[in-house]
């Protein structure tokens, strides 16, 4: 199965959209449907999900029915065999919902957890889980991070010891998105502690309800409130060998590969969030009057919004360029690291100014921008902190 479908921006000109060289007709149609879904099904309802601390399962199932959860997966399991550009479109449009918690619930499922199975699962494993994941009947999470190991994956301490036809897992995972309510978890554990950290990690599919596996506690966060985040505990948790995803001791490399996709979609999500914030702020400053005229009449305000909008547009082009490189099967670690570093910081710059221009209203819990400020903060931390990303870029600058 190849997730890299042909996507030739300079080829068949008839099928290229006016919106840019990376988009084909089906990309635009997909974007239109997503946008309508977000406008009609998410925006009017998600306030309550923030209160509840999770996105309802019925919403994810509906997205599954519409094929939104199986963008790049094989048609044999209910997917649509589209490309990386389509995944970026998903993330951008979900980002525009203004509810980061909802967006991340979906994106962890589609682009951070399930790719482990898609990329490295055996035929039997794919048949067992993929149809349910694509249809939204089962939701998944990825459990790599630990209290003492985040971006430094090699330092994880959770371990799995072979015992007959099982592996026995012990350890604790931290900050796991979808952690409370997922059905299936892709868990990283050390299977060989005699070698370097990068060489002895494996990935296991662990189902909810497996004895010895429990959710420690739901974590309270600054933002992303409509997303559930948990601490996970593995205490002599027995997992059959059949649940080993990919080759034993090769997990570090599959995690690194999946990080690329994760970082790309996070960047695209940041762009969607930034665009939505600028649009909301534009509405506000053209209506709100101060000193006898709308705020928009102040050059200081409109010029700052103009520059932010230029920066967002430039970053958006890098996101889609990187998605396109990936769709071509080209190496784009440097570009994706740039996307993550740039967009994670940019979205925070955008939110700071947008909240500033909302004045006192932007400090109230009832304003969307207040939530968006809180949601944006994690974008420069999670999925590869800015500092880590900058080192990845620096390494590839050819000193």
């Amino acid at each position: 199965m190849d997730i890299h479908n042909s996507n030739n921006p300079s080829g068949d000109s008839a099928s290229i959209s006016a919106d840019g060289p990376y988009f084909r007709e089906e990309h635009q149609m997909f974007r239109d449907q997503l946008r309508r879904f977000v406008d009609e099904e998410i925006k009017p309802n998600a306030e309550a999900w923030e209160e509840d601390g999770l996105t309802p399962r019925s919403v994810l199932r509906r997205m599954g029915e519409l094929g939104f959860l199986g963008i790049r997966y094989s048609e044999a399991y209910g997917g649509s065999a589209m490309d990386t550009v389509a995944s970026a479109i998903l993330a951008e449009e979900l980002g525009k919902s203004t509810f980061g918690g909802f967006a991340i619930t979906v994106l962890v499922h589609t682009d951070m957890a399930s790719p482990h199975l898609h990329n490295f699962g055996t035929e039997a494993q794919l048949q067992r889980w993929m149809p349910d994941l694509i249809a939204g009947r089962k939701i998944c999470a990825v459990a790599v991070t630990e209290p003492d190991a985040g971006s430094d994956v090699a330092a994880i301490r959770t371990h799995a010891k072979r015992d007959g036809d099982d592996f026995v897992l012990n350890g604790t995972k931290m900050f796991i998105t979808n952690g409370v309510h997922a059905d299936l978890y892709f868990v990283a554990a050390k299977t060989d502690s005699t070698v370097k950290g990068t060489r002895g990690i494996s990935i296991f599919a662990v189902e909810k309800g497996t004895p010895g596996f429990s959710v420690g506690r739901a974590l309270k966060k600054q933002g992303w409130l409509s997303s559930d985040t948990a601490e996970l505990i593995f205490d002599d948790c027995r997992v059959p060998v059949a649940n080993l995803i990919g080759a034993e001791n090769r997990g570090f490399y599959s995690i690194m590969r999946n990080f690329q996709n994760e970082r790309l979609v996070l960047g695209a999500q940041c762009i969607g969030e930034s665009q939505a914030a600028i649009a909301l702020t534009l509405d506000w400053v053209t209506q709100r009057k101060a000193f006898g005229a709308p705020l928009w009449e102040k050059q200081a305000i409109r010029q700052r919004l103009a520059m932010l909008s230029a920066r967002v547009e430039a970053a958006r082009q890098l996101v889609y360029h990187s998605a396109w490189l990936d769709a071509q099967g080209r190496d784009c670690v440097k570009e994706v690291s740039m996307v993550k570093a740039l967009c994670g910081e940019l979205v925070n710059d955008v939110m700071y100014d947008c909240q500033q221009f909302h004045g006192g209203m932007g400090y109230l819990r009832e304003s969307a921008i207040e939530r968006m400020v809180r949601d944006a903060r994690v974008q420069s931390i999670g999925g590869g902190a800015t500092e880590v990303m900058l080192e990845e870029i620096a390494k590839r600058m050819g000193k």
Partner: protein
Amino acid sequence: MRVLVPVKRVIDYNVKIRVKPDGSGVDMANVKMSMNPFDEIAIEEAVRLKEKGQITEVIAVSVGPAQAQETIRTALAIGADRGILVTQEGAEPLAVAKLLKALVEKEGAELVILGKQAIDDDSNQTGQMLAALLGWGQATFASKVELGDGKITVTREVDGGLETDELKLPAIVTTDLRLNEPRYASLPNIMKAKKKQLDTVSAADLGVDATPRLKTLKVVEPPKRGAGVKVASVQELVDKLKNEAKVI
């Protein structure tokens, strides 16, 4: 039975439109385009009739530039069976009606479901003109459609109630907003739509002269809404309505 559904590519309903500084029309540069919402309702209705097994084929037709193919593809993703693009830019309602007549005859369609109007020019003429050209019965602004044996029953929302019309087939129906709620096109159906047949013909191929007959003199922005005023009494209100607004 074959059903023809025309779909028009218009500026997306979410876009804040701007009039060009020279007043020659609306600024269309880099503006998002979508299917006319009333036409989406028409496609949805036709697809539902097909799903009920009452008709055999839904043909989506667009009269417009090459990019209108995208609009037809959307109709195919909702469930139309095939599409026809008539490459003709800026066609006026009468020209569109003539082109549709030619296609109805060519394809042997017995029912045409159209949006009652397009949200760009709000003409609300094409369906009626097509009915006249074909000499078929018409039921406009449908809020409910029931297909029977050789006839179609259409409910229309009129002032003060509902009017129910029964028409002999073949017939023309135009859709109101409340006829149905169009479905989402699922991603698998979007991908399947790529493989459906989409033919292109020109006005000349259909033997229709689509030359514009109307001349646009000037396009202007609607007047800006002024600030409201509070009145102290009914008397003052009546006075203002009479002497200032001159509406009573």
